[in-house]
């Protein structure tokens, strides 16, 4: 059943911001949270792996200096952000909750001796126990790789449309620790210096941490989730199909709800991601007959994995609030791409009503959403 899905509240903490307003000011000011990451508490194997490359890990980490277990760190952060999100008071209604993550509290479970567990479910259960929320009728973790946020939003939308609940809290977060850093290093996916989305000299992604809390509901609010689509293509594990068929399928579906005024791309700054995403966005511009401006946020926040789509969605809502598009800073090469109107170096003031947000991930996952001012 079609119902309007509103975004009732949102909040986030990233490596460059303590809250969503600070995220906006950092994106607008060209401020990045990327810095060297200490390997002080890392197991020798991971430390030696980076040292063998004469390399120091870098990341955009949340700067709160928590030193507990992965579980404690994630739950503490999730509770902090969740409590800051401002919920519109509404009658008692059934509520759902979804945790979007790629690895959850994995750093706590890597010893061969431990029991076989679900490192995401443990985080969600601990959060629920400490948050003591009322009227929760369903709780679930989603792990669709780097499109987990889009997956969580798609599931939450279905729950509300089906009348399973009237409100869905979506919380997200990963920890960038030695496991994830070592893994991406082994794939040669990391940049040694900075994330340069949609630039010819890009050389890889930078990992980042973000905790998001966003609530979807059937209660009228300023912004609505016009549509969200996820699509798995059968091509390869670490790269999309050359034509970006999966992403095009998602994006072309959501823009049926209206041509976007701008797009926030996944923009990880790996060679392949940006090449394929550019191909798809240029085709979407042709499809809607509009060269909508395109920007990306990972130069500031890093690739925040299970939070990636939610960070971009919160950035999109801020663009709508301010009628302004934050730029990709320090960008020089503007000529190698098929998509038109990448927003480089200078912010763009523009009346905005809707934003397209796209995501891709390992395993052939893709996601696209359209967020707009409530009609």
């Amino acid at each position, binding site marked *: 059943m079609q119902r309007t899905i509103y975004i009732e509240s949102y909040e986030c903490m990233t490596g460059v911001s303590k809250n969503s307003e600070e995220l906006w000011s950092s994106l607008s000011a060209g401020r990045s949270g990327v810095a060297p990451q200490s390997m002080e508490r890392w197991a020798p194997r991971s430390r030696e792996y980076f040292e063998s490359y004469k390399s120091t890990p870098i990341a955009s980490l949340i700067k709160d200096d928590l030193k507990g277990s992965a579980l404690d760190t994630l739950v503490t952060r999730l509770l902090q952000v969740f409590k800051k999100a401002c919920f519109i008071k509404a009658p008692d209604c059934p509520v759902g909750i979804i945790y979007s993550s790629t690895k959850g509290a994995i750093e706590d479970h890597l010893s061969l001796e431990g029991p076989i567990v679900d490192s995401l479910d443990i985080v969600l259960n601990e959060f629920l126990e400490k948050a003591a929320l009322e009227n929760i*009728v369903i709780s679930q973790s989603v792990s669709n790789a780097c499109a987990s946020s889009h997956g969580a939003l798609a599931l939450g939308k279905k729950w509300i449309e089906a009348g399973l609940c009237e409100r869905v809290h979506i919380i997200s977060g990963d920890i960038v620790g030695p496991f994830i850093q070592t893994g991406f290093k082994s794939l040669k996916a990391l940049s040694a210096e900075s994330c340069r989305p949609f630039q010819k000299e890009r050389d890889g992604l930078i990992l980042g941490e973000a905790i998001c809390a966003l609530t979807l509901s059937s209660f009228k609010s300023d912004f609505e989730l016009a549509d969200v689509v996820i699509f798995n293509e059968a091509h390869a594990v670490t790269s999309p199909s050359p034509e970006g068929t999966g992403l095009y399928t998602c994006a072309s579906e959501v823009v049926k709800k209206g041509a976007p005024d701008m797009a926030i791309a996944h923009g990880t700054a790996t060679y392949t991601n940006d090449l394929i995403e550019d191909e798809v966005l240029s085709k979407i511009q042709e499809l809607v007959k509009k060269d909508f401006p395109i920007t990306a946020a990972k130069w500031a926040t890093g690739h925040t994995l299970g939070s990636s789509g939610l960070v971009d969605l919160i950035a999109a809502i801020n663009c709508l609030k301010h009628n302004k598009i934050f730029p990709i800073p320090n960008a020089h090469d503007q000529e190698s791409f098929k998509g038109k109107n990448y927003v480089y170096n200078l912010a763009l003031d523009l009346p905005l009503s809707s934003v397209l947000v796209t995501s891709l991930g390992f*395993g052939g996952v893709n996601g696209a959403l359209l967020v707009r001012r409530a009609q």
Partner: protein
Amino acid sequence: MSKLKYFLKTNLNTIEFNNKVAPSWASKVRRWNQLDGESFCLAEASFYYDSEVLPCSVVLLASEGSLNTDRAFQNSAKVSPSLFVHTLPNVRMLSYSLMSGFEGEMICLNKGKQTLGLALAQNAYMFDGLGLKKILFIQVTKKDEAFYTCDFFELSKTQGRDDYCIEIDKSKPFIEEVCDEDNILREKIERGEDCHLNKSFSMRKSL
């Protein structure tokens, strides 16, 4: 109408993880010898899985995440990128897609020991509004060092032989109270017994 009836076709498999010999489906997966146990065994099960019609949507169930492979990556003598890419449970979906040709909506869900039960319950509750003809649930679990269980469950409105019948009463609110944990559900399905899915649902062997 608040009482709704759906049918669940079940297909349970125990697959040996033997990547020393090229499997029958080797031509469909270039690097079959680099797949982790879950992906390898799902490819094997999917190759032989006979489904008349492709599903509209797939729900991949990862009750243990990818912890077996996570540990293998962490504890291997040499850091292995081919192991790392399997430390995302959704990646094993490619095994099914490459065998069946399926491309479309896929969501990977985790809920510990109730992953299958909750996935079935919520999707049965939502089914009439989703506009889909068939949802396929896939669950892969490591049994021991040599074997994995790879199970397929198809939810639809079409009754087939030996299907389970799921009846739900939508006049009652949804409550997440899965009664049979996944391992119990699987044992009951293996024996063809009725299952205790949820207080609002019955899951019985069709007559």
